[in-house]
């Protein structure tokens, strides 16, 4: 984990379509929120990107670098106090195991979608 104590993976599963699913719990006490932002704690979008990448590392049991992002959309704000629990879903491309489509969501709310390509470190 790049940022120590930022979150924990509470459980994980692989579904019938070979999607990897992770339940994430943020640590609302993390000192990153002192700076983002002092008066309004919002989880930085880049930290959600990092969580997706680290889930992909767990899924593939490899150390990875996010080489390209075709598109990443941030569609709702993640806040550590109101939405500390969410799900990460990753589908790897059948023809390229390091190409992924991922999303961060909770129930009906999608916080982020990301299409990107990883490379092994």
């Amino acid at each position, binding site marked *: 984990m790049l940022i120590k104590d930022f979150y924990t993976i509470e459980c994980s599963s692989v579904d019938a379509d070979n999607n990897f699913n992770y339940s994430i719990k943020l640590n609302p006490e993390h000192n990153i929120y002192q700076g983002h932002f*002092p008066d309004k704690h919002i989880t930085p979008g880049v930290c959600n990107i990092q969580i997706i990448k680290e889930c992909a590392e767990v899924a593939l049991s490899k150390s990875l670098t996010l*080489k390209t*992002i075709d598109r990443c959309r941030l569609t709702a704000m993640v806040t550590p106090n109101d939405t500390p629990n969410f799900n990460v879903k990753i589908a790897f491309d059948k023809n390229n195991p390091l190409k992924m489509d991922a999303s961060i969501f909770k129930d009906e709310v999608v916080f982020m979608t990301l299409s990107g390509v990883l490379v092994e470190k």
Partner: protein
Amino acid sequence: MYAGEQIKTFIPQREPILMVDKLFQVSDSDVETGLTIADNNIFVDGNMFCEPGIIEHIAQSSAVFAGYNDWINKRPISLGYIGEIKKFNLEFLPKIGDNLVSYLSVVSQALNITLMNATTKVDDKIVATCKIKIFMDKK
């Protein structure tokens, strides 16, 4: 040029996630910023400055652009959020002590959404490029 604490005039981000420490030049259509990678930067892993740090640096550079233009027009500084990142391509990860220099230019601007082209370099070598869309929460 503005540096160090002066950058806080233009953006609301603070330590430990302040990812711009220099503003070299800014206009109403582009901005050039910098960041020296400190060994205690939260996005450093071993000796390397990792992807989320590079993207946050680019995002905060666009926030500096918007914040500077708020400031010279005597408006309150807005909170800026990343709306979308497209065509991000990483060439290499910088290391501790490297001086990032980023150049961003406006592609389009509408109401509170700004789309910018970004290029980040170290010693004239491209680190990463992307298109970034920033949403400004106007006060």
